[in-house]
């Protein structure tokens, strides 16, 4: 019944109910990580590198240690064990061991009785550096293999280079009616969550190291802390309180969390660290800057015969999620429009800048921007309406794509039709007159990554329920509420299955000691994975109650609703939910149930096939209207129409909130946000610094800059989602930047093939002879030999023909449906 096919009216699902944590948020009752304090607590500050790339020659903390109030000074020597989010990139030390790799890399920690004392003491620590060559860009990283920023990685300063061929793309291009080549650049940007990271660590009297910290992934922090500190994981507890936004910026284990824990162990006192906004810019893990080259061949009808994507990622100083990010710049190119053959090359380089990682859309907004603008140009050459082209070429429901992704329900066409209708596209596109324009784009995103970050066969999410004889139900889950509403999803799903009011479900989340593992709030996985686990646990509880309710009817007739358990054929025959629990408890003893979820196995088995599979994919389409001032190049977004394929909206208010938030974030990326760096004249200085590490000067939209947004929800229940639900946290960001670029073209007939689309670039394009602004070359990358994977319709079995079989699992031919 929870697969979305249930047509009965719901108790609480789909209703715009107030979210369970709303009062706490608006009254200030919610405690964020920085709100936690303990008696005897010490404060910690980190001294960060002031040079971009250097060997640490010496650290002298004598003066700092002598300062009154200073309790401890820690350095890299205290943290010999490396860590990192991916098993293949264990390249971080909680404090730099022998080298610093960017301005902002933490070198020394000072712990003191007051935060101000700790801060002042850091300035008394003398660190001597021996400078190394600074590598500021991917192009430089390719050109300068030595010195290596890291001693691991593919070669020189290339962290990872991948090459995948799904069919013979050059042959497809040779036979094409039209081949189009484009270069794009997507600038890096950061999450800018309002809540700055904070952590409080203490060694409890129970012998447990507990860390209260702003994290989207308490489970991964748990593992990293145990590893680096060398204490059994059973003695580590991570508490992730509700967060003021994460967006991917709190999905890595962070150095400051680990250092605080070590400092608490050394001093025997609770240790707190609250990062400044500038430090959050140094934690980063934000959107990778990506340079792209795309080449696509279409036939006379516009069908894509071959599509080639090359990406060059500026990874910054550490691995983070970078290997996954690199694959993600190629993985989801195939899930929106039919592509017969596909060729992908991706390369991530190390540079001396804060590490990039996952930000809302993780690795996919960049190639999505390229693809959607590229298609706009192809449609123009073909004389095709770009909205209609997208509708005509949409991937069919149940397809297996060229790169072996199984896409089940697809709401792409209804999304496109909805925004076309709402925006008056057919009467207004190319007809608004000079200075005003409409642009369209569509996209797709994962509903949870198909694989966990470290290889294992265990559930991705677990939910435990405790049914109390009062009629209250407590739901325990390791999921992290980062503001997206996951606590609400959990409560609503349990309430729906058990037919009780949402406030009768108490949720206990984000605590590794109190709930089953949930892998974390990333990859848009929580509603789907925690949701399926919650439904399973609630179903099992329901079965117990059905069996014990004593209504004297067959279990199939037992219904749950309105806080009662009753006979579906005779609702007057029933008892309260609390009574039912009491009867079940009398019969079976204490009532507790569990549920868990693991995504389906992916059809592809080639190396790299682990990035991209998902239980389901959400779809989004957007039309953006802009006004462009030709005298200055200033672009004003007037309106955004956006339709999102949500499968089923568990709470439409929360869904709309996520859509609007995504539009807001996307417009920031499209128009102004830049994680930009300043390199001072080398003859005068070796500095390479973040240009604007502040809320004021790192420009993102303020409320007055936000246009009207019309949100349309497309409900097309997905069997793999709880009650048919799909993700909404990330997908709606994706179509907006390319739709802005396409709208600018409609308005003033210039192409800005990169974001942010600033007034400078629009004006430069208007005054250029090519009527374009953007990159025009792609450096030579030493690509590895490609893995050869035949698309499903060319006789493939999901493996690469030129690598050893990674797993024996012949594909079931029935799964092969060509898009």
């Amino acid at each position, binding site marked *: 019944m929870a697969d979305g096919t249930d047509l009965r009216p719901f108790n609480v699902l789909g209703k715009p109910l107030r979210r369970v944590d709303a009062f706490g948020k608006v009254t200030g009752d919610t405690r964020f990580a920085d709100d936690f304090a303990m008696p005897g607590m010490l404060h910690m500050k980190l001294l960060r590198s002031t040079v971009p790339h250097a060997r640490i020659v010496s650290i002298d903390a004598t003066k700092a240690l002598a300062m009154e109030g200073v309790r401890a000074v820690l350095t890299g020597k205290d943290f010999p064990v490396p860590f990192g989010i991916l098993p293949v990139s264990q390249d971080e030390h909680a404090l730099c061991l022998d080298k610093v790799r960017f301005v902002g890399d933490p070198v020394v920690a000072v712990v003191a009785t007051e935060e101000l004392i700790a801060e002042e003491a850091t300035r008394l620590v003398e660190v001597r550096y021996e400078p190394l060559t600074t590598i500021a860009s991917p192009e430089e990283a390719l050109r300068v293999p030595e010195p290596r920023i890291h001693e691991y990685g593919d070669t020189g300063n290339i962290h990872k280079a991948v090459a995948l061929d799904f069919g013979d793309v050059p042959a497809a291009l040779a036979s094409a009616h039209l081949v189009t080549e484009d270069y794009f650049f997507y600038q890096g940007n950061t999450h800018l969550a309002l809540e700055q990271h904070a952590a409080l660590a203490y060694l409890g009297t129970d012998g447990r190291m507990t860390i209260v910290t702003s994290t989207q992934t308490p489970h991964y922090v748990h593992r990293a802390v145990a590893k680096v500190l060398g204490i059994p994981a059973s003695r580590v507890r991570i508490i992730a309180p509700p967060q003021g936004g994460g967006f991917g910026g709190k999905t890595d284990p962070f150095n400051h969390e680990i250092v605080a824990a070590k400092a608490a162990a050394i001093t025997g006192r609770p240790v707190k660290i*609250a990062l400044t906004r500038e430090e959050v810019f140094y934690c980063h893990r934000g959107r990778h800057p990506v340079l792209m080259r795309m080449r696509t061949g279409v036939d006379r009808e516009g069908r894509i015969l071959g599509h080639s994507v090359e990406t060059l990622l500026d990874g910054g100083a550490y691995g983070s999620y970078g290997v996954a990010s690199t694959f993600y710049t190629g993985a989801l190119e195939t899930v929106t429009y039919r592509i017969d053959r596909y060729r992908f090359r991706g390369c991530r380089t190390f540079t001396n800048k804060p590490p990039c990682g996952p930000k809302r859309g993780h690795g996919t907004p960049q190639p999505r921007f390229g693809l959607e603008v590229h298609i706009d140009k192809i449609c123009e050459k073909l004389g095709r309406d770009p909205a209609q082209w997208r509708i005509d070429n949409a991937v069919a429901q149940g397809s297996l794509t060229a790169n072996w992704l199984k896409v089940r329900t697809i709401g792409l066409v209804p999304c496109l039709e909805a925004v076309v209708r709402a925006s008056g596209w057919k009467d207004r596109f190319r007809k608004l007159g000079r200075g005003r324009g409409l642009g369209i784009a569509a996209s797709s995103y994962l509903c949870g990554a198909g694989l966990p970050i470290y290889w294992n066969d265990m559930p991705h999410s677990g939910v435990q329920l405790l049914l109390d004889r009062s009629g209250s139900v407590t739901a325990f889950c390791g999921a992290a509420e980062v503001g997206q509403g996951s606590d609400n999803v959990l409560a609503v799903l349990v309430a729906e299955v058990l037919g009780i009011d949402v406030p009768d479900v108490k949720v206990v989340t984000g605590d590794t000691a109190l709930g089953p593992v949930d892998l974390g709030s990333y990859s848009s996985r929580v509603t789907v994975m925690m949701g399926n686990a919650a439904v399973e646990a609630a179903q099992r509880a329901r079965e117990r109650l059905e069996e014990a309710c004593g209504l004297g009817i067959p279990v199939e007739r037992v219904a749950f609703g309105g806080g009662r358990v009753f006979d579906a054929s005779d609702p007057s025959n029933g008892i309260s939910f609390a009574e039912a629990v009491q009867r079940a408890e009398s019969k079976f003893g204490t009532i507790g149930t569990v549920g868990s979820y693991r995504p389906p196995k992916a059809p592809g088995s080639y190396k790299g096939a682990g990035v991209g599979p998902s239980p389901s994919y959400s779809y989004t389409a957007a039309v953006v209207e802009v006004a462009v001032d030709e005298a200055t190049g200033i672009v004003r977004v007037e309106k955004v129409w956006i339709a999102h394929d949500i499968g089923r909206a568990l709470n439409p208010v929360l869904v709309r909130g996520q859509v609007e938030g995504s539009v807001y974030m996307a417009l920031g990326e499209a128009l102004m946000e830049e994680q930009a760096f300043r390199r001072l004249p080398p003859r005068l200085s070796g500095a390479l610094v973040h*240009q604007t*590490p*502040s809320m004021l000067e790192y420009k993102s939209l*303020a409320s007055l*800059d936000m246009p009207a947004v019309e949100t349309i929800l497309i409900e097309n229940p997905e069997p793999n989602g709880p009650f048919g639900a799909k993700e909404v946290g990330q997908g709606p960001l994706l179509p907006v930047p390319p739709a802005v670029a396409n709208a600018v073209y409609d308005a003033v007939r210039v192409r800005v093939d990169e974001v942010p689309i600033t007034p400078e670039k629009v*004006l430069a394009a208007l005054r250029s002879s090519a009527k374009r602004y953007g990159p025009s070359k792609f450096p030579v990358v030493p690509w590895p030999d490609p893995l050869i994977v035949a698309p499903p319709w060319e006789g493939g079995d999901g493996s690469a023909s030129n690598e050893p079989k990674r797993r024996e699992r012949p594909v079931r031919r029935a799964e092969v449906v060509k898009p």
Partner: protein
Amino acid sequence: MMRLPRFRYLAPTKLSEAAAILADLGTQASVLAGGTDLFPNMKRRQQTPATVLGLRRIASLRERSGDPRSGMTLGALTRLSEIEHDSAIAAAFPALQHAAASVATPPLRNMGTLGGNLCLDTRCSYYDQGPEWRAAIGYCMKKDGEVCWVAPGSPRCWAVTSTDTAPVLCALGAEVTLVSAAGERRIPVTDLFADDGIHHLTRKPDEILSAVHVPAPSGRSTYVKLRRRESFDFPVLGIAASARLRDDGAVEDVRIFVGGTGSRPLEAREAAQWLAGRKLADEDVLREAAELVAHVARPLQNTDFSMSWRKQAAREFALRALRNLLA
């Protein structure tokens, strides 16, 4: 979080007392009005005064006298939001109302004062940074270093005047009173500023800016502000103009000041001379004048937006400001 450095806080209730304290401490003390500029700077250790002299308890600094229509005096502690929401000011001096309303955000305008906005520290992307960031570039001339990174060969600092109200008050011919233990002096607002990023005020260390005197309006006034967003941001260009037109539409007298580019509000004298006697309705006249205004705006690479674009945008925004005088 960012912590303020340690300092002594004094908050006298009388202006004379405050002046006496300043006479004693001079550069060792910083004067505090709304705190929206001083405190962030102190958190970033750009200023680390031993003593902060709070003016908030001095009631006389909040007083207002006169009438916008016939000339008014505003106490230095008049909040920017008071000016923003005053309909009489909006009617007589739309440029001043608009400038005050365009500063930062509503909560900051509730704290920020007119006197504080006039005395706003000059800004620069190499200077408005935390201490570690500034250490990473080897500091700059304005604080702890020797070089001006905006123009490394230059003997002076090029930090930018970023006050919205100053160019407007210059254009309106306003004056300020400066009080010290030795007495008080009244000077035109234009004379309050010096063309240097470090020594950008002619206010002496022992002086307190106590009041702003705005003469009766003599014509139309306007203020056009260029910035990335509709709120929050400091100006990267602010053009203030005040003009008296004859019945036939010809310009009798015009004063144009440009903020947000140099270290002080700069007067566009050539543009004013060109416009004298000419008609604003003549688009060719306006274009030439806008060109002359843009000439004054010499942006450098130390604020938001690229230097060359700001130069190009200056012409367009000057044109808009001058057109506003017609409306």
